[in-house]
């Protein structure tokens, strides 16, 4: 029996060896080398276009459900509604029907509310053949299921192993090469090499996710001595921005693999890593950031002021810390196309590993990055107003809703101040006008 197995054994080994070599050569030629030089064959764009056609085909097989209530129907401000409810144009006074406004708004929010929507994945208009986005589409035909099955095979059988290999390559190279660059003496050569190494490794990581990114307005790219702020949807945002420019990262020191990466990166160029205890001390944080910014030989700092991952349909309140430092702010808007894969990280539902697995088994990550013109704090503007101005600019450019809600609401309670706002508005309508009456 053994003698029969032997020739098969060596045959199998040979086949495996050959396919492995072929595989690796293809990888090197089509993916790694372009990443090193920053060029692209355009394979990913071709892939994206074919995916779009695929989705259009599957569109006809699916039923869809829209939003449950039409909130914009008869959307008026509190003042207008109250005025409207007055009969016969009498002066505004309290009327028993005023409660209807609050009642209706309350019940609307029970049926469908704005904030919870932002912290769960964005709903798609049509299905993109990924099980995880199939929350609305209960009716699926057999043809569509077959298509989905083929999709699963391609994604998990071919794309996932490819991507994992690339990811390991990218991260491994990052750690090794930055440590090597760290051995050089400080100077222009070191900075140059560090930039090249960082860019190359991030580009490999981009390909590991099959991320197809369109950069707009690159003339506004952040420069040294400034702070770059962007809206936050996922940890991948960092990789997306860092593969097109060099930034100094800010973050907490982690243990494990992240810690290894962080320590290696900081050898090549100065990043700002905080110990857990230091994070609480706001003055210390502000000082370290200001010191870094003051040194124009250091790279621009990359910060995500929302403080948490939002689902990319809106921009939430920016924390004012980075806006107090008083240097030029370079806003960046990032908008993902959810049809190909949802990049949003719902950290209360999925852990990091699960999330990365989702990312790597999606079709692709497609996004657009807009570099906005630099902004500075104006005379008489405080940090909060400046932060809101920047936030509005980012929301407008990226086509996202500009909300005043705090990202901290993901976990915390509503502050009383929001209820007070409502009460203030209503009382202005009532009492304000009765004062007019008493004067006349």
């Amino acid at each position, binding site marked *: 029996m053994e003698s029969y197995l032997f020739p098969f054994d060596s045959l199998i080994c040979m086949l495996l060896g050959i396919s492995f070599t072929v595989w690796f050569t293809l990888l090197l030629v089509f993916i790694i080398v372009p990443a090193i030089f920053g060029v692209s064959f355009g394979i990913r764009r071709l892939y994206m276009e074919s995916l779009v056609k695929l989705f259009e085909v599957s569109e006809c097989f699916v*039923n869809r*459900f*829209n*939003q*449950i*209530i*039409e909130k914009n*129907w*008869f959307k008026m401000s509190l003042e207008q509604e109250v005025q409207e*409810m007055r*009969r016969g144009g009498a002066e505004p*006074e*309290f*009327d*028993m*029907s*005023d*409660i*209807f*406004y*609050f*009642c*209706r*708004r*309350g*019940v*609307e*929010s*029970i*049926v*469908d*509310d*704005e*904030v*919870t929507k932002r912290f*769960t994945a964005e709903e798609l208009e049509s299905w993109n053949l990924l099980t995880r986005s199939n*929350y609305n589409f*209960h*009716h*699926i*035909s057999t043809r569509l299921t077959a298509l989905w099955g083929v999709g699963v095979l391609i994604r998990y059988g071919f794309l996932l192993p490819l991507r994992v290999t690339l990811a390991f390559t990218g991260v491994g190279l990052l750690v090794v090469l930055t440590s090597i660059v760290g051995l050089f003496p400080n100077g222009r050569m070191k900075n140059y090499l560090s930039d090249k190494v960082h860019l190359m490794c991030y580009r490999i990581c981009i390909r590991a996710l099959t991320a197809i990114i369109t950069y707009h307005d690159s003339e506004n790219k952040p420069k040294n001595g400034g702070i770059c702020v962007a809206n936050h949807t996922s940890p991948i945002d960092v990789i997306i921005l860092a593969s097109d420019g060099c930034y100094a990262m800010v973050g907490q020191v982690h243990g494990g693999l992240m810690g290894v990466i962080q320590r290696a990166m900081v050898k090549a160029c100065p990043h700002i890593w905080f110990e857990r205890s230091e994070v609480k001390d706001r003055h210390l944080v502000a000082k370290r950031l200001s010191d870094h910014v003051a040194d124009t030989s250091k790279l621009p700092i990359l910060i995500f002021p929302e403080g948490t991952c939002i689902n990319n349909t809106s921009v939430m309140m920016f924390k004012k810390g980075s806006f107090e430092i008083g240097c030029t702010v370079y806003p960046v808007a990032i908008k993902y196309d959810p049809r190909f894969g949802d990049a949003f990280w719902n950290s209360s539902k999925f852990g990091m590993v699960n999330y990365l697995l989702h990312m790597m088994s999606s079709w692709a990550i497609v996004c657009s990055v807009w570099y906005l013109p630099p902004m500075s704090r104006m005379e008489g503007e405080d940090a909060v107003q400046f932060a809101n101005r920047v936030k509005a600019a980012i929301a407008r450019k990226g086509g996202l809703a500009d909300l005043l*809600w705090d990202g901290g*609401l993901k976990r915390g*309670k*509503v502050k009383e101040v*929001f*209820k*007070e*706002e*409502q*009460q*203030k508005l*209503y*009382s*202005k309508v*009532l*009492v304000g006008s009765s004062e007019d009456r008493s004067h006349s």
Partner: protein
Amino acid sequence: MGSTSSTLLKIPNVEVLMQETGFSPAHIIRLHDRFKALDKEGRGHLCPQDFGAIKELAMNPIGDRIIGAFFSPGKETVDFHTFVKILAHFRPVDKDRPKEPNSPEPINSRSNKLKFAFQLYDQDKDGKISRDELLKVLRSMLGMQVTEEQLESIADRTIQEADLDRDEAISFEEFRKSLEKVNIDHKMSIRFLR
């Protein structure tokens, strides 16, 4: 509609529910999804804290009262049926519905909408809005923005205008009469799509 009926079958007595409330199967499914989303611990019923977790509702000056409207006296949980029946109050009035003489009044009739609003004022459920209850509602809606005297003068004026039988309180009939010119359908309806 293939798989939609399988979701509907999971909801007990769904036919009765649809008949009583007038919601379409698509609406029931969406409301069921919403119910499940609010019921974070998957217990199959909602408690006041689940409603309290809705941020926009917490910001609403009369949010607590609205939550209270979902819970019958003595009950601490809301099941899916009750949830849908209460929300049915906010369906726009069916203009084309034929008036069958023996059928019960639909939940979203003008009168029932008014009753819903009335109970937001009448917390002790004695059928009358007393001066105290009116003051409490005014305080919720205006917060600390007005003085006690201003509140009292508003309350007194309102009772004076609406209270026809001079018993210092507003009964449901008086409430209804004072609002006869208001377009209740518009103000107390939510447009449910499809």
